[in-house]
């Protein structure tokens, strides 16, 4: 099995397990799916908040609900799928990765602003 096939097989298996897990279990009511300690302590929404709940909604085909919970995570998924398929993130110009980091950090900051339209970025349960 060459590198690419192995990579796609691992990712495919991982996706299958994740999809099944989040189809069956709703993070809101499932005790073994962790809550964010940062959120519990500070009430703030980090860039990842709502992502697991979003996966649950996605597994059930509720796209808009998934987006409402964590738009960045939902947008990241096709990008990550593309990178995995092509296997070519090492060829990205470094500037793009630093820009990506900036987007993630910015998202983490903006979604905590309690004013429209930034509230759209925060997880709406």
């Amino acid at each position, binding site marked *: 099995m060459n590198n690419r096939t192995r990579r796609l097989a691992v990712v495919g298996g991982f996706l299958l397990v994740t999809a099944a897990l989040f189809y069956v279990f709703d993070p809101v009511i499932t005790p073994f799916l962790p809550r*964010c300690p940062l959120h519990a302590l500070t009430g703030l929404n980090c860039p*990842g908040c709502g992502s697991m709940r979003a996966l649950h909604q996605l597994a059930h085909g509720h796209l808009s609900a998934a987006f409402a919970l964590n738009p960045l995570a939902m947008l990241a998924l096709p990008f*990550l799928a593309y*990178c995995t398929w092509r296997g070519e993130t*090492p060829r*990205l*110009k470094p500037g793009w990765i*630093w820009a*990506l980091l900036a987007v993630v*950090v910015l998202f983490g900051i903006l979604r905590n602003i309690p004013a429209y339209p930034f509230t759209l970025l925060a997880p709406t349960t």
Partner: protein
Amino acid sequence: MYRIIGGDGKEYGPVSAEQLRQWAAEGRVNAQTQVLAEGATDWKPLAAFPELFSPATTPPPVAPAMPTQKIPNYLVQAILATLFCCMPFGIAAIVFAAQVNTKLAAGDVAGAMESSRKAKMWCWWSVAGWAVIAVIYLAFFIVMAMAGKLHQ
């Protein structure tokens, strides 16, 4: 006239001594190139033909270009770690992933490998962090559930 075996394994010729000397000078044939002189029955390396080959005339062998090393930046894993596992550790992983590409672009292969190693490490720490929090939360839940039952 001579025949030679080229680098592709194919036979070339007949070529003149002049042509062979020219090729030697250009580095297109070297001391090991197999040569069959007209009328001869066995192949000999070019070095065995002093009339064709003089070590001084051949250019020094060019070192083959280093193949661009595949140093993974773990960017996909780092993004997943940040958004789905453990944000602070994931951010660290993204930083090191970015460093891999920065250093590769600057030609710092050793530095890129080190950053790659660190990116991978932070990705695993993110998973571990997620698991630890999961266990703590589950334990907390169980304790609360049991406490609730005690009050009934």
